[in-house]
């Protein structure tokens, strides 16, 4: 290894004990708001559409209920008992309570409480992947055999704002465990963060603020590019060593552009690129793409996952699929099953379901 690579290699995050994904599960609500509906209301149908449609939660759904279903799917694939889980961490920017954790509700619902670590994580759209990095470490250090990390959101955009076209609902749960029981091994992770004010929401504010000129180059592209390039240089891999790649997907344009800049082909990113059909699921966006890839991947395939969270930062993962994928992936619904379960709604129904109507 050259001195340059040695220096970079120290930047990789790698557990002492080999860790992998033993179970995974996705969730997407059934309702879809076509972007054309938003354009019809706010621009006489004149706007360029960033996605085809986005997923919308039902009246009785929130990040807790959606996390519970994803967690149950992950448990079905992991084939472990709930008592074996030693952590449940939920990353989101739309936790149902301002104060009271989502993770304890999920732990109780799947029968994993009370002998368990639980906590809620926040970092805009990378809250899910930061919980995943921590879960890899929790298992990798030997503190626990199994830990669950979830990234789930029911994002809201201000009515008429550009974000209203894309702010969707959905996410995924992953259970990490010892590599020998895994359906995919986590080779290493790498994280890159800077203090960048591209997008934020102050306490008690319903909708986020975003600095239009900040959200592209200095935020999304800079962080994802640094994270992906550093991980590849330090691990002496190149885009062709990966069968698939998935990047945070706030719209269709950004992930396709960053993939091309990094040297990935359309074929490598196609299976994980779901934003056109379900919208931007924020903390769930990169990782629900990973579930769709695991649904079709073959043993030996290497996958690059790079999230992005405003504020700002990226977590990158290099993951290699094992033989266990063949039978485990069939133990729970596939991500495409949730995408196919599609009930289109109009803007009026959307307004009702998203609590934009005042009843009293």
């Amino acid at each position, binding site marked *: 290894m050259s001195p340059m690579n040695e220096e970079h290699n120290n930047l990789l995050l790698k557990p002492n004990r080999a860790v992998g994904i033993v179970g995974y599960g996705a969730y997407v609500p*059934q309702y879809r708001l076509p972007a054309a509906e938003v354009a019809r209301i706010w621009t006489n149908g004149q706007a360029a559409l960033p996605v085809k449609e986005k997923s919308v939660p039902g*009246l009785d759904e929130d990040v807790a*209920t959606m996390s519970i279903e994803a967690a149950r799917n992950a448990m079905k694939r992991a084939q472990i008992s709930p008592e074996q889980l030693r952590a449940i961490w939920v990353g989101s920017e739309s936790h149902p309570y301002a104060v009271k954790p989502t993770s304890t509700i999920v732990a*109780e619902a799947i029968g994993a409480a009370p002998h368990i670590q639980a906590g809620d994580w926040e970092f805009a759209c990378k809250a899910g992947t930061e919980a995943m990095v921590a879960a890899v470490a929790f298992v990798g250090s030997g503190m626990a055999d199994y830990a669950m990390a979830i990234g789930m959101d029911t994002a809201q955009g201000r009515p008429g704002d550009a974000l209203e076209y894309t702010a969707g609902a959905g996410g995924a749960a992953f259970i990490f465990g010892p590599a020998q029981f895994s359906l995919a091994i986590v080779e290493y992770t790498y994280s890159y963060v800077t203090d960048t004010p591209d997008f934020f929401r102050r306490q008690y504010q319903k909708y986020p603020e975003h600095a239009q000129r900040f959200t592209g180059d200095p935020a999304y592209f800079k962080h994802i590019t640094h994270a992906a390039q550093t991980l590849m240089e330090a691990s002496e891999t190149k885009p062709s060593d990966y069968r698939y790649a998935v990047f945070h997907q706030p719209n269709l344009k950004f992930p396709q552009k960053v993939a091309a800049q990094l040297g990935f082909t359309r074929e490598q990113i196609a299976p994980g690129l779901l934003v056109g059909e379900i919208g931007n699921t924020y903390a769930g966006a990169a990782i629900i793409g990973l579930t769709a890839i695991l649904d079709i991947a073959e043993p030996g395939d290497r996958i690059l996952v790079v999230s992005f969270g405003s504020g700002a930062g990226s977590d990158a993962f290099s993951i290699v699929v094992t033989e266990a994928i063949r039978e485990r992936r069939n133990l729970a*619904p596939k991500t*495409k*099953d949730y995408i196919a379960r599609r009930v289109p709604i109009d803007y009026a129904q959307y307004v009702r379901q998203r609590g934009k109507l005042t009843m009293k």
Partner: protein
Amino acid sequence: MEVPRHWRLRKQRYGLVGEACPHCESKLFPPRDVCPECGKDAREPYQFSGRGEVYSFTTVYEPPTGFEEYAPYTVALVKLEEGPMVTAQLTDVNSKDVKIGMPVEMVTRKIRTDGDERGMIIYGYKFRPVLQKS
């Protein structure tokens, strides 16, 4: 405020946890500690599969206090595959598509909010049409 009652019932409500009778293998829901089949003690916790079918149903247009924001919704008597019958809301389904004998599966959803938007969110089981798998 009914926080203590919601807290006591959370296990059976979130996950459809009932009891199994060690004497005659009957499954009980809701848990009642005495087997209705053989009359003996039945206190073994039992996690129901969540699968069942619609036995009968009715659609609610004028809901009781606390449920206004969900109307109209359908309430069904669901026969669980393990035997017991439970009353629950159906979700992710249009009331005109509900049929007797329709296979359903348990999901955990918001039931209502205790009081106004400052109150506790009550979660519990509902049933939806079985998700189609490829």
